[in-house]
């Protein structure tokens, strides 16, 4: 490519950026806040119920809550409702743990026709994999630092 073509490409890139629709910060923010908050309130409800009925400790109740929220997120994704919520809520549906379940089920369903090994099982981790990689690696690093800091 000669210099002229580069310039044209640059011009085009600037035009695209100028014409791309600007996100509505207020509207998106309020939706994310509302839906994200609501999902957490549902989680708190489940947490309180579990703590009361099953007589679990606070930490066990928290783990059980996360389990149930993952089940709900996976089920709603399977039924096709979670994507409808996600269209409006954006990060409000992605950041809660139900969104983590969504990120597993959605691609797994989508690639079912590629088979149960390279389709479903492999694609499950297309988003969840990176989350686990960075989460677990950073926790190990933090743990090692904690060990040497204390000794």
């Amino acid at each position: 490519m000669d210099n002229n073509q580069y310039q044209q490409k640059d011009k085009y890139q600037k035009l695209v950026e100028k014409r791309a629709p600007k996100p509505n910060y207020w509207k998106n923010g309020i939706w994310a806040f509302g839906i994200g908050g609501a999902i957490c309130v549902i989680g708190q409800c489940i947490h309180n119920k579990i703590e009361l009925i099953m007589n679990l400790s606070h930490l066990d109740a928290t783990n059980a809550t996360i389990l149930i929220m993952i089940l709900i997120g996976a089920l709603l994704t399977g039924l096709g409702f979670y994507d409808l919520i996600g269209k409006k809520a954006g990060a409000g549906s992605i950041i809660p743990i139900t969104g983590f379940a969504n990120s597993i089920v959605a691609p797994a369903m989508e690639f079912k026709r590629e088979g149960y090994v390279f389709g479903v099982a492999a694609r499950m981790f297309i988003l969840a994999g990176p989350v686990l990689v960075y989460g677990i690696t950073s926790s190990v690093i933090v743990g090692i630092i904690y060990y040497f800091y204390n000794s």
Partner: protein
Amino acid sequence: MGYFNAFIVGGFICLVGQLLMDATKLTSAHVLIIFVTSGVVLTAVGLYEPLVKIGGAGATIPLPGFGYSLAKGAFKGVDQNGLLGAFFGGVEATSGGITAAIVFGYLMAIIFNPKTKP
């Protein structure tokens, strides 16, 4: 009161994520990774624990809560088993969530088919 706090804290964490996605050109995958890692780091420096105390599920349900569990588990492991505990502890504390995500995720993906997009 607990529900109100959960709403505010949980909503605020999601709001930060939305602003991050809108203002920068980060994809949702990048935001998820940033949130998990920052959950681990914030727990390590002791800033996330108060948030969990105030917000309850509002702080443990969003993804930084996953990082919080990982970091807490790693610390607990180090306290019990020394240096090896840094490797055992994190996943041990979050094993329920990870297993649930894999098993339920797999089951739902088998049972249901994707809806045709309108």
